[in-house]
């Protein structure tokens, strides 16, 4: 009986605190969303080719360019350490030149992040190349399969 009488004000305080926490969490989430929205361009690690093409950075300014190394675009110069390739994102393409050792995962059809600067002639000169791995994890054995088997196995995995 007496518990009934005392539990009401306690319950009320509990509800008030619950409401306060819920409001605080909503405000926090809204603040975080607004902050990340404001950051959305600045917080990206690199620019994609369509951004570079539509809004080119000033020649000589250090930027990162990321995208896919287009199949068939990779050319090794006669000196053996200088390479040319094209980075594309499906919409735009940027030719890149680089001199140095490439990471193991760097190859045609795969992702790459190049650090460097645009030259006046529209070529990107990279000082550093980083390879980008995609979300697909495929065993090496698949390499020994025929193209059709490989495709079937990959589709089985990624569907």
């Amino acid at each position, binding site marked *: 009986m007496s518990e009934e009488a005392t539990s009401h004000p306690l319950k009320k305080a*509990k509800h008030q605190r619950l409401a306060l926490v819920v409001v605080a969490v909503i405000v*926090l989430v809204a603040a*975080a969303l607004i902050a990340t929205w404001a950051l959305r361009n600045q917080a990206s690690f690199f620019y994609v080719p369509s951004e570079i093409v539509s809004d080119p950075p000033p020649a000589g300014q250090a930027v990162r360019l990321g995208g896919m190394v287009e199949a068939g675009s990779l050319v090794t110069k006669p000196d053996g350490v200088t390479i040319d390739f094209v980075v594309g994102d499906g919409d735009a393409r940027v030719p890149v030149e680089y001199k140095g050792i490439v990471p*193991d995962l760097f190859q045609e059809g795969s992702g790459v992040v190049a650090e460097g600067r645009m030259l006046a002639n529209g070529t990107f000169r990279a000082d550093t190349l980083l390879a*980008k791995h995609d979300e697909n994890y495929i065993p090496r054995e*698949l390499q020994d399969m025929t193209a059709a088997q490989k495709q079937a196995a990959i589709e089985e*995995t990624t569907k």
Partner: protein
Amino acid sequence: MHGFANPKRFLTIARPLTPALLVLGSLLLCASLTYGLFVAPAERLQGETVRILFVHVPAAWLGMAGWSVIAMASIAEIVWRHPLAAIAGRAAAVPGALFTAICLATGSLWGRPAWGTWWEWDGRLTSMLVLLFLYFGYIALAGATAREGVSSRISAIFGIVGVINVPVIHYSVLWWYSIHQPPSLSMGKSAMAPEFLWPLLAATLGFSLIFSAVVLMRMRALLADAQAEARLRRKALDSDRGSAQGDW
């Protein structure tokens, strides 16, 4: 749920649950890591370094899950004022910080051969580092302001505010162009071959069971600490009274 919030009832459940979780988690972890490190095939592009996955992903998951536990415990503490919630938050902080550090270290070891860099100030990497610093802040704050093993309200508020970083970590690779690959697993879809997927899921479960066992152990230790402190205080009070009477 309210029944388990009673420290005595909690102990009767936690005592047998701790070794059970520990044994089950260790068995699962041994099996999955043995398979992952020695039997699983090399990956098409990454080669042998793909094996780091079986430690890196569970560590990342537990680093984020650890802070989620802190946040839920903090809300329970502020709304229901229950000391066990505060103890749960403090108990999850140290293992959470450890797994976050493991995630950063293994990620760095993988990044050097795969990407060609130990570290980049990328959205995913940076937000994970921020999580580690948040853990350090929480541990210092909760430790400094704890009374009789119960953490203060200020650390509970810190725990709730810090949880904002958890979705930022998760979505960092989707919102922003990132060097880090997007998640391979999402809502019933897997971009991972079963040879990698199953040991990864088993290792994640194994690490999680061990994490839960460690949190329970730490909760019991913090509870025992609080009881010992309360007993000492009572004793000191009694002997004060005794000597005062003697002087009288």
